[in-house]
């Protein structure tokens, strides 16, 4: 069977959930080989093997993490050349999409971003994406070169399928040209103890209606073990960090449950959450467009509804 290259998604060697999702999907196309660029391949090996990696290409190039995107693209291009994979799967986040973009040009291959499903079709690898703020579903295929597919987090339920996961150290040369944009400083974000927005099964978001007080939103999120999101209005007002913004210019999330509190539901926001499985909204304005999307809506003040719901959730969870 042909190899399928899967770029691991990790922070300083610690794997993110998306990696297991990519490996699960890759098994539909061939034999997954994980490509781990950076430190921690040995530690990651067990997890990678568990989710179906036959091989783990370990590229511990000290330069790779110090430069933006280009070295990873070069390393992947060398591996594509070497193993002629059936496809390359990459996490559909900012860096992953850019790595894929450069890889596409380098290898003369078509690329697809934001795939929510990947499968072997009659005409090769087929993908599904949501477009135009989630109002359309598109099926697409790559017609030239090695299909390079960026897969959105939370698109597949992970399934274990243990394989050997043999680690192969790879010496990959990174050119000087790829070392043009240097990361000179990196300040880690303060850990909140909450799940990552794009990975979370439940997301609770606040908007203009919070008036800047995210307390009730955070407390409700914590009662559910949820991630906290924010609308663009709330981020633009400086009430919550941009990295938590849900919407067209922020994160696109697709959790099992999405709760919008004090968010009107402009197209900008819908683009980031419309594909969530179950949607709940709390808003004072019964005319708010967000209510067109909901499975359950409460017309009311989030400052009384959310604390009551938080108490009730805690009570029921015991």
């Amino acid at each position, binding site marked *: 069977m042909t190899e399928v290259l899967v770029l691991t998604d990790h922070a300083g060697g610690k794997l993110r959930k998306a990696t297991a999702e990519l490996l699960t999907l890759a098994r539909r196309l061939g034999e997954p080989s994980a490509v781990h660029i950076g430190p921690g391949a040995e530690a990651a090996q067990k997890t990678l093997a568990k989710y179906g990696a036959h091989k783990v290409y370990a590229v511990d190039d000290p330069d790779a993490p110090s430069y*933006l*995107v*280009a070295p990873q*693209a070069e390393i992947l291009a060398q591996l594509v050349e070497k193993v002629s994979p059936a496809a390359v799967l990459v996490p559909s*986040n*900012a860096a992953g999409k*850019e*790595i894929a*973009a450069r890889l*596409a*040009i380098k290898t003369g291959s*078509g690329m697809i971003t*934001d795939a929510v499903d990947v499968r072997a*079709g009659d005409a090769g690898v087929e993908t599904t994406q949501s*477009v135009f*703020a*989630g*109002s*359309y*579903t598109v*099926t*697409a*295929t*790559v*017609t030239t070169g090695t299909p390079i597919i960026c897969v959105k987090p939370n698109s597949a339920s992970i399934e274990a399928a243990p394989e050997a996961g043999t680690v192969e150290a790879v010496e990959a040369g990174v050119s000087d040209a790829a070392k*043009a*944009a*240097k*990361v000179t400083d*990196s*300040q*880690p*974000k303060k850990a909140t103890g909450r799940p990552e927005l794009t990975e979370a099964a*439940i997301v609770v978001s606040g908007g203009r209606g919070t008036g800047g007080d995210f307390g009730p939103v955070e407390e409700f999120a914590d009662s*559910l073990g949820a991630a906290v999101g924010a609308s663009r209005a709330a981020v633009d007002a400086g009430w919550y*960090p*941009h*990295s938590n913004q849900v919407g067209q*210019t922020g994160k696109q999330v697709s959790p*099992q449950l999405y709760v919008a509190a004090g968010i009107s539901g402009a*197209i900008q926001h819908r*683009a980031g959450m419309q594909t969530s499985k*179950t*949607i*709940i909204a709390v808003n004072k304005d019964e005319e708010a467009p967000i209510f067109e*999307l909901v*499975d*359950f*809506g*409460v*017309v*009311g003040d989030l400052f*009384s509804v959310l*604390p*009551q*719901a938080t*108490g*009730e*959730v805690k009570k029921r*969870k015991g």
Partner: protein
Amino acid sequence: MNIVVCVKYVPDAQSERTFQESDSTVDREAVDGLLSELDEYAVEEALKIVEAQGDGEVTVVTVGPAAAADAIKKALQMGAHKGVHVQDDAIHGSDAVGTSLVLAEAVKKATDGSPELVLTGMASTDGVMGVVPAMMAERLGLPQVTYASELTVGDGSVTIRRDGDTASETVEASLPALVSVTDQINEPRYPSFKGIMAAKKKPVETWSLADLGVDPADVGLDAAWTRVVSYAKRPPREQGQLVTDEGDGGTRLAEFLSTQKFL
């Protein structure tokens, strides 16, 4: 410093966006278009740099059908100095790979082969792939400095802040470079009346693929390395249950979560 800003003319997100039945490409005729909102930040940033330096010109480059001239017009009204419109029927249906090829060649021609600084938005508001800046950097052999939420242009170098999910990074590169900016970087200006009047006299050149030396066989729908097999309108979500809070809204919300097995 002379800056080239790449912009895109996109269907208005507030309207009903759809596809053309004949070839499954985005229907750019059925709805009104405009300068992609995310590109306004790149135009604004370029204007700020040139204004701070007191010299240099901002050239706006777009690739698109005749109507795409509106995107250039808006940028000129904001204060950009001149426009380049690459327009050729053969470009229709190009994917990001084809678009990045045309843009890269247009940037080269607009700068006699030696760009100083190329600015773009972080993504378009229609395709939202966010890959054209990386592809252009790869094609032009320029340092790729993307997702800038702050940009400082120094002597022969650029420094940005890039806010990722897990860290806020400082990234440096030497000039020439390609920088993409986020919507966090500035507050784009509205065209003034004076700006609108002045824009009418600003030069806009229209180039064909032949002018750029690009083979029409390398772009357009047939040359795309990806293909839309099918598209379907997502069924509208069924109207769910709406309750008005009468002191029990939170409890009823928790009750719903419970029946849906979230608790």
